[in-house]
């Protein structure tokens, strides 16, 4: 079939518009120029954001979990993603500027200007304050270097075309909060931004976008059998003190203990302050039923 001549410019414009719309976005450089990172506060952010839980080597224990060599596998409906090396070495983020780091963490764009897969929760981190990004960057520089090469993701067509992620971002990438602040800015920042709880506890649609109408309402476990539990009040009947105690000790109100990937999340929360854990608990208890 020959295209009616009049449609050709329309198609060209549409293709051009699609190309433009799917272009990787970047942060505003001026927001970062004057910033000096505070590594000490960066350590708090690093713990709250759980960076090591995904980026340490698969079998690392104890202090070795601070060597961010990558290599852990994350299965999904779209393929298997491997956490990359983000240690300060040539195989990791050694040569990355703060601006490049900010683009990766808050915009999901790497140092070569390519879209990153949202297995990396920049969809949550996008709400990080620029000063916090600078602090986190400063802290990462203090960690041990590893020369282990990052493993390529195992993702099939069409998801292996990174430009297609531009379309995904148009649909699902937003820096809006889900819940109102409710006088608990710290709890909301911890849950929705840093600890990225929604990434596992919220169900996803067929394209892998979070179904925010069922925010934290529980979801199938992408890593295999079982489910990630709901945190909404129709299912979770723990008190705020129970939630805070669980995040500190890993014990449920029945004194069963935490397991799976959540065990590492609890390890992180245990290192934060009681006030932080209470803020998270208050946020959870304020959730509406879906």
């Amino acid at each position: 079939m020959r295209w009616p001549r009049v449609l050709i410019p329309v198609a060209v414009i549409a293709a051009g518009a699609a190309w433009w719309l799917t272009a990787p976005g970047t942060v505003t450089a001026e927001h970062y120029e004057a910033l000096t990172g505070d590594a000490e506060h960066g350590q708090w952010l690093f713990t709250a954001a759980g960076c090591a839980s995904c980026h340490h080597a698969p079998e690392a224990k104890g202090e070795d979990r601070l060597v961010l060599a990558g290599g852990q596998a994350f299965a999904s409906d779209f393929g298997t993603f491997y956490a990359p090396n983000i240690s300060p070495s040539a195989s990791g983020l050694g040569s990355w500027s703060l601006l490049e780091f900010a683009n990766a963490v808050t915009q999901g764009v790497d140092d070569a200007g390519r879209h990153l897969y949202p297995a990396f929760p920049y969809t949550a981190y996008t709400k990080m304050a620029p000063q916090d990004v600078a602090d986190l960057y400063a802290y990462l520089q203090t960690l041990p270097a590893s020369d282990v090469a990052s493993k390529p993701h195992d993702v099939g067509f069409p998801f292996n075309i990174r430009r297609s992620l531009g379309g995904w971002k148009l649909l699902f990438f937003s820096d809006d909060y889900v819940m109102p602040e409710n006088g608990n800015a710290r709890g909301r920042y911890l849950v929705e931004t840093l600890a990225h709880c929604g990434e596992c506890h919220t169900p996803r649609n067929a394209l892998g976008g979070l179904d925010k109408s069922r925010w934290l309402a529980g979801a199938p476990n992408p890593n295999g059998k079982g489910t990630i539990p709901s945190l909404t009040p129709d299912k979770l009947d723990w008190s705020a003190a129970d939630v805070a105690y669980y995040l500190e000790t890993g014990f449920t109100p029945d004194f069963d203990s935490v397991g799976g990937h959540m065990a590492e999340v609890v390890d992180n929360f245990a290192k934060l302050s009681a006030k932080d854990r209470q803020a998270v608990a208050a946020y959870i208890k304020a959730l509406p039923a879906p």
Partner: protein
Amino acid sequence: MKTIVTATAVLAMLAGSVLAEENRQLEGRKGQFNILALNVGILGGMAKGAMPYDAEAAQAAADSIVGVSMVHQATLFPEGSDSMSIDDTRAQPNIWDNFSDFESKWAALGDAARNMQTVAATGQEAIGPALGQLGGACKACHDTYRAPE
């Protein structure tokens, strides 16, 4: 015909006894974790302040935890009793790939339990840190070897 019926009956009986044996092991290992949870619950209640501190009850709970930690795990975790092979268990198949690591994690529970046993009667404030070590031992094993619900 008679032979076939007899053979089938014998096989069914054998299968039944294998199943019964498996159930006993499964019940045994679930039972030990329940005993652990009940006693950790007493210490946790005291640590949280949800229940008044009682040195004698704390000691009894700690002693019970030590008792359970002395149970030899290989007896309760035979090959083929993982979550892929049978129902009603969250025991991951990788336990049997790393059985010595699995046992050393159980031994770490024993260390934490004996520490609790030493401090439980010395005062309410001693319970929290000892409980932290106990919880760490639970987590370290569940992190690797227990499937999610």
